[in-house]
């Protein structure tokens, strides 16, 4: 019979390397028409990092995402970057790009100040214009300023900068220190059906509530969360590399190494927790890795809630779940009164779902 259960898991996860320096450098060039080119040594690995980095540069320069072209991943042309690792791109590379864009913007302000009859400190960049703070009617198009800077003042607007997260090394005896500049937090709740005769687990729904500081691009944050959950489901229920007794892999192929497909994906509901990290670019932290962290834990707790069976080793294959169910039943028989807690929870959940 299929039993329904729910499980909750929360987590914390750091941004960047453990203590070790993991710098990023960036160059931002404002073209003479007010568009911009960003040079970064990071590599787009499919997560949309270049879009996010472009948005950060655009925000600092007061222009639109589409006005920015990001050049990446060529050691001859792009500056040093520690790379797409440790959920650090938005935070570390993003900070470097923001700082570089700020420097380019300062040149624009210096050029625009006499044109507008104010001091550079009184200016801001917004909506593709350089304008006087609290008096936006007094403005010049950013393209005009950039053109003037380059061709009249001979002062092209470009900036370069680098960023390295602030850490304090760990005491070798006690491990005390500040290994990371910042952390993100998240909770996932899973709802599952467990067949108590076969041990098969079906994940029905996952609610994911993730902190990433300011979401620079909420759509890409959601994409990361959904992708991370699919990886988490594989880790929880299906994927396992097996070895024979001589250390040779038994299933090095996608026929026998089972990964979740779209058919295994549950309904996913994503929430981004409101947060702002003052050390991140526009309050942003990161989201890449943490999305895959709490999924397996939530599913295991849901299995326990459904059938009272605690799985101690991943993946929770039907064989392992069935074995755990048998252990749970044996325990229940041994002390019939004490452990009747887990079961009644399952029923109201079913009722509620039927009503939905």
């Amino acid at each position, binding site marked *: 019979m299929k039993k329904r259960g*729910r*499980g*909750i*898991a929360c*987590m*914390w996860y*750091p941004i960047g390397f*453990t203590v070790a320096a993991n710098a990023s450098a960036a160059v931002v060039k404002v073209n003479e028409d007010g568009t911009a080119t960003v040079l970064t*040594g990071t*590599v787009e690995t499919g997560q*949309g990092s*270049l879009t996010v980095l472009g*948005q*950060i540069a*655009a925000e600092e320069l*007061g*222009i639109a*995402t*589409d006005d920015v072209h990001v050049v990446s991943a*060529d*050691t001859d042309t792009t500056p040093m*970057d520690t790379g*797409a*690792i*440790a959920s650090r791109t938005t935070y570390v590379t993003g900070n470097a790009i923001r700082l570089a864009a700020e420097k380019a913007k300062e040149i624009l302000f210096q050029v625009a100040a006499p044109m507008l009859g104010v001091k550079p400190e009184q200016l801001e960049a*917004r909506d593709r214009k350089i304008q006087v703070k609290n008096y936006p009617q007094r403005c010049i198009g950013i393209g005009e300023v950039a053109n003037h800077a380059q061709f009249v003042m001979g002062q092209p607007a470009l900036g370069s900068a680098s960023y390295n997260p602030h850490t304090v090394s760990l005491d070798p005896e006690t*491990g*005390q220190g*500040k290994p990371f500049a910042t*952390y993100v*937090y998240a*909770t*996932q709740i899973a709802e599952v059906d467990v067949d108590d005769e076969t041990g098969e687990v079906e994940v029905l729904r996952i609610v994911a*509530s993730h*902190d990433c*500081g300011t979401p620079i*691009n*909420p*759509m*890409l944050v959601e994409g990361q969360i959904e992708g991370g959950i699919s990886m988490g489901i*594989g*880790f929880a229920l299906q*994927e*396992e590399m097996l070895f024979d*007794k*001589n250390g*040779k*892999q038994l299933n090095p192929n996608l026929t026998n190494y089972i990964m979740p497909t779209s058919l295994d994906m549950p309904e996913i509901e994503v929430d981004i*927790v409101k947060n702002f990290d*003052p050390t991140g670019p526009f309050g942003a932290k990161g989201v890449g890795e943490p999305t*895959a962290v709490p999924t*397996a*834990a*939530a599913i*295991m*707790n849901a299995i326990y809630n459904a059938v009272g069976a605690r799985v*101690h*080793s991943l993946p929770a294959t039907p064989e392992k779940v069935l074995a755990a169910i048998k252990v749970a039943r044996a325990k229940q028989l041994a002390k019939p009164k004490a452990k009747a807690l887990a079961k009644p929870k399952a029923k*109201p959940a079913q009722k*509620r779902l039927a009503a939905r």
Partner: protein
Amino acid sequence: MAQKSNKQSKRMDTPMSEKSRPVRSKKSAGIGLPLEGSGTLRLPAVAKQVPFPIEALAPKVRQQTPAVGQRATRPDGRLHGLGQTKYIDDISFPGMLYCKIKRAGISSALIKKIDTSEALAMPGVMAIITGKDIPVNSYGPSIKDQPVLADDRVFHAGDGVAAVAAITEQIAQEALEKIKVEYEPMPAVYDPFEAMKDSAHKVHAPASNIYATKLIKKGDVEKGFRESYRIFEDTFSTQMVEHVPLEPHCSIAAWDANGRLTIHSTLGRITLGRTDMARTLQLPLSRIRMVATIVGGNFGGKNEITQEPALAVLSKITGRPVKGTFTRVEEFIATTTRHPINMHYKTGVSKDGRILARKVRLVLDGGAYCSWSETTLGKACILSPGPYNIEHVHAEAFVVYTNKTMTGAMRGFGAPQVCFAYESHMDDIAEALNIDPLEIRLRNAFHEGSSSPTGQVLHSVVVKDSLLQAAERFGWKEIR
């Protein structure tokens, strides 16, 4: 201009929802444009040519200011959708050769002899190299214990022993069969707990199999246990998994007449990659150019070089560009994987479910080489107590060599493993104390200014917010 391009992007996006699905016709200029006549959908054997748009296709959301917070579409999204993204394997150069690597297939052995003569005599085979042809045959992000191609020892079954460059992939593959390697099997160890024993076979003798450790100590854990109302103890373990990126590892090495090397690679970290190339090939950094494109999935598996120095040496010998693309089998046997971790938890709690003390012991199966194990070890150890205020913490972690596929960086660096353990453990504690799982987490969760297990004062902490927000969305309280 913006408006016009919007219109165009709409036209390109609509056809999938139209009733008449695209059929083969001369008129089908754009991808999937609705055409006259319905009939069954026939997929063309070769993808149709897509005309390049004259005007930039920029959806409105990319044109808005301020830029932060916009659901801006990715400039590479259209290319992915049209199947036009150029990955490394889509690139080829005139005269390019293909490389294949012979894998050991035995997990611990001494290489007595490698006979490449028969393979080298095959028509189309241009060069074959072994470990001795790599100028500095070792690499690794922390411990440089991994050879590009095996020297005289095999440490795991996926080790490469020889690399072939041939005019076609097929010939290179066939040449692997003709390479004769004589092995002398050696003792091996596969279980991390076995490997930790003094009597165990030393994978990288004379060094100990425990190649890195980590210790986090805060407060006095024994005192915490003495003050606890109840103590819970449990052990959890996880398996080895692969990253399985859609795109396998692929690189092309090419030298120019000035002796400058260009590597096109799927590497996610070109800065470190170039440093590794310079070291293994003994070249100044200025003579190496490393170029990446959009990587088809990394997840930590493409954080270090693999075959690149071998490709570079083959290219230098032959004077032609050399491409190497891993097969799916190689992705499993010859690239890094996620650490299996054995996790022992001992937790002391107060009557109202507050965690007073927690002792954690982690044993990570490190496989044959260090790779990113030190980082994984550190992160797993620091994160292992969970996002909870605990006064007394003792967390220790060990990573151990075994004669298995090396473990390394993978999305979460040990965090998914320890999260499974600390959160399973948490629910068991909650049930024993008859506290709701959400409630026990709220009672213990970090708050702004909490002190982490390493004594760091935490800022922008929203664990409780995320717990409450998820519970609200799920209907956690209603169901109870």
